[in-house]
């Protein structure tokens, strides 16, 4: 098989299963690619080639003995660095956790292991997943493979860039306000935020527990469907995980029939603040959906205008509490630990030095929002808005099957461009945040390059909670129509690096 790194995960899995190629060969090809390009892309924070190859060999043996029957056996994957992996450094992109090797693995890591998926390493991210550009990593930014001077989105910029630069066929991301979808959009890849509770959060270091959701990243819709089906399912260790059978996402992606479906366009998520080229590609996609037999309807979600405000109260509040455990006492770095120092001084010095500016900003916001006397006005009010946004979705889904919008208002911006303007940075997630607040599911897939800058544009498909299959049906239909036009995936247009 030629050019292993450019194949889809499904193709690789098939070839490995048929023993046309070994997992070791596939893994080596990707490790070689990482060593060739990652110095420039910086998608990975940690790679252990020997461990990956050893694991690939193990999987090859299992396959040879007929012990493994999984749709992804032998296929390599990249893990966002907030997924706890036993014995493997897990930093969450933060200096405060440098050197920490978790004593246990996340549930999804165990599921991937059982499915014979081979880990290539851990990917870069905004510190504790706070950011939309991966510039807030404590270990330096990741570069967009389409233009190395630009951001790959965030917080999961490392996972998206790894896929877009053919360093990995698959990656795990997490999405609290768009951290899977926005990087997918700006790197020309596919990313899915599953329904809240659809994928176990156990072992995924929490940013905002009520918003976080892990999901699949890949270069095409089918690969995300396969990966999603491998990591999904109830986990008794995560009380918030859904106890219901996992739908057949692969069958949904295969069906790709959207005739007679009603697709809603959210009035509030277009127009002002959206880049013209983004809107242009979005309108073209609507035309394609119509050609495929869907009916386009405009719907209004009047409370979405408050989503950003509510999100930036709920997220920091939960984060301020979730991040309290990083105090230098039990794991990670410890600063200024002299005999004459009190425990408060050591905790304070450790957090002062270990956390970056954005993390501190959000901890302070959250601490303030939860303070007695302010709770009702901030956290309480934000929760009420959250309810109203959920109702906006419910009302919209009585009229339409799925909703669509541009994933991100703009294409990838330049590294450093918005670093000093938090509000401009936060606005990147204006279209993705409502989904996290309501807990339903969404996908971003590439729909073309913006004419003005030649950079990828993503379209977001939103479905009701537990209707993730609809994402794959619609996404797959749109993708195949676009691929027919382009003569291949959009990502094949990316620079070869």
């Amino acid at each position, binding site marked *: 098989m030629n050019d292993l790194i450019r194949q889809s995960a499904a193709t690789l899995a098939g070839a490995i299963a048929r023993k046309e190629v070994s997992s070791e060969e596939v893994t080596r090809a990707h490790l070689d690619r990482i060593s060739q390009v990652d110095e420039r892309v910086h998608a990975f924070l940690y790679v252990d080639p020997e461990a990956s190859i050893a694991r690939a060999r193990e999987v090859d043996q299992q396959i040879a003995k007929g012990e493994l029957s999984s749709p992804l056996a032998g296929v390599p994957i990249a893990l966002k660095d907030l997924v706890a992996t036993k014995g493997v450094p897990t930093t969450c992109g933060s200096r405060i956790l440098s050197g*920490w090797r978790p004593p246990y693995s996340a549930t999804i890591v165990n599921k991937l292991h059982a499915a014979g998926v081979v880990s290539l390493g851990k990917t870069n991210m905004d510190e504790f997943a706070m950011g939309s550009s991966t510039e807030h990593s404590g270990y330096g930014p990741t570069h967009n493979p389409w233009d190395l001077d630009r951001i790959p989105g965030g917080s999961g910029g490392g996972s998206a860039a790894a896929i877009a630069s053919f360093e990995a066929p698959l990656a795990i991301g997490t999405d609290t306000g768009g951290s899977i979808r926005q990087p997918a959009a700006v790197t020309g890849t596919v990313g899915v935020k599953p329904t809240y509770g659809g994928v176990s959060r*156990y072992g995924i270091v929490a940013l905002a527990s009520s918003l976080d959701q892990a999901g699949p990243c890949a270069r095409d819709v089918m690969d995300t469907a396969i990966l999603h089906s491998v990591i999904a399912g109830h986990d008794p260790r995560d009380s*918030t995980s859904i106890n219901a059978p996992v739908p057949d996402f692969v069958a949904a992606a295969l069906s790709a029939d959207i005739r007679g479906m009603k697709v809603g366009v959210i009035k509030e998520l277009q127009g002002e603040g959206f880049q013209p080229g983004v809107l242009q590609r979005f309108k073209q996609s609507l035309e394609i959906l119509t050609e495929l037999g869907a009916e386009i309807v405009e719907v209004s979600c009047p409370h979405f205008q408050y989503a950003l405000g509510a999100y930036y109260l709920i997220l920091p509040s939960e984060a301020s509490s979730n991040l309290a455990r990083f105090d230098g006492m039990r794991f990670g770095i410890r600063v200024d630990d002299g005999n004459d120092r009190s425990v408060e001084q050591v905790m304070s010095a450790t957090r002062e030095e270990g956390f970056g500016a954005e993390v501190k900003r959000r901890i302070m916001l959250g601490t303030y929002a939860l303070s007695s006397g302010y*709770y009702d006005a901030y*956290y309480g009010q934000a929760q009420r808005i959250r309810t109203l946004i959920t109702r906006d979705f419910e009302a919209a889904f009585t009229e339409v099957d799925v909703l669509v919008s541009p994933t991100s208002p703009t294409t990838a911006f330049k590294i450093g461009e918005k670093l000093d303007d938090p509000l401009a940075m936060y606005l990147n997630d204006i279209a993705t945040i409502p989904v996290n607040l309501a807990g339903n599911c969404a996908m971003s897939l590439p729909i073309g390059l913006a004419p003005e800058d030649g950079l990828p544009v993503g379209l977001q498909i939103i479905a009701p909670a537990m209707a993730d299959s609809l994402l794959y049906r619609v996404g797959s239909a749109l993708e195949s129509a676009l691929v027919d036009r382009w003569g291949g995936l959009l990502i094949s247009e990316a620079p070869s690096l």
Partner: protein
Amino acid sequence: MTTEYNAVITEFDPIIGLETHIELGTNSKMFCSCSAQFGGEPNTFVCPVCLGMPGSMPVVNRVAVESTIRMGLALNCSIVPWCRFARKNYFYPDMPKNYQISQYDEPLCINGYLDVTVATENGPQVFRVEIERVHMEEDTGKLLHAGGAGRIHGATHSLVDYNRAGIPLIEVVTKPILGTGDLAPEVAKAYVAELRDLMRALGVSDVRMEEGSLRCDVNVSLSRPGEEWGTRTETKNVNSLRSVERAVRTEMIRQADRLRSGERIIQETRHFNEETGDTTSGRSKEQAEDYRYFPEPDLVPIAPSEAWIEELRGTLPEIPSVRRARLQIDWGISDFDMQSLVNAGALDLIVASIDAGVQPAAARKWWTGELTRVANERNCELEELTVSPSDIAEIEGLISAGDLTDKMARSVFEGLLAGEGSVSQIVSQRGLVVVSDDASLIAAITAALADSPDIAEKIQGGKIAAAGSIVGAVMKATQGQADAAKVRTLLLEQLGVKE
């Protein structure tokens, strides 16, 4: 009752309130499957969850929820149809996550009551203590401060044992208890005792107070009759029944002193000193921490169904007050006697002794007599003494077999209380053997008669009561190891006198 205390009561009305934390006796911890047993090598009953490792998540222990609901039902509470856990945020190294998962404004059980009885000179008096809430939370780890005085201040370093972190706690909070008057300390003590007995009867906790598995925060305020309620203080971590009573009393006296001299009471937490019985100022509420409570997003709400609650109601045992009434009738004792032995914390020990084969009267005699006296002397609970119901059964067995006299039995108790070992060890170490050898007794009788020749004549002359002094002399000579009745029989035989 001191005159100092009486003076408080003539001038002020006390209002008390109690928050009691009790460790549940579940096998596993509140939010993970680690063992919840007491002790163990430090940091051996731990896992990523109770160590607060990044990424780990809590899962609620169903048995702990059941225990709490059963406790709520036994306390006549309403069980709410829906409630959540909350996070209580504060930084402290005994808390792995730097927040405690607790319940805040949505407790599982609300609005109950517990009737407690206090013995007074006018007979038993019943007080209804209203319960505001019963909720669940997790315990913290244990800090050991090394160097200095064993306190955090002056310590060179501190060690943390997280075995206790995550052990399920139940917290029972009373509404303000009014109208107790001078009985406030006794009511507080009786309430905690009743609560403890209820937990034990329900089997939700064995409440080992000596291991700190019951901890009480005691709220006290004073007001002059007709005036608004006074400012309250909260004395934290009062860990025994006796201390609860003392803490209320000393805090009442302290507050009265301040009020009389025109000072105000500062709303603050206070520490109780077990040795002196005094309370000292902790941190004042004015500089209190803001715990930034919010609903725990890692857990789903608890919504107990009616059917589940009814099923649990069906598992409630005979509650302690009903059991006491039954035992009182069985034993044929007065209200006052019953109340005294309950207040002394002797009830369960007496029942356990009877279960071990001791006659009820004998069991009551030992626990409420000698042993209660020693417990009072030592300022401790009866159950903390190194005497167990099975020891009493063993001693009583020896007495009825004629192998121990009453006096020797007291010596065995002394030995037990001094920690000299088991009953049989003490009997042999102290040489406590009944002298039943006739020849040596007759020799002792002969010697005693020789010392007082006139007495033999008196007895033979019909004054049999005079035999007492000879028996006494023989007992003295044998160091109490003879059976007095037997000595008397042998004496009369020797003198040829028939009764």
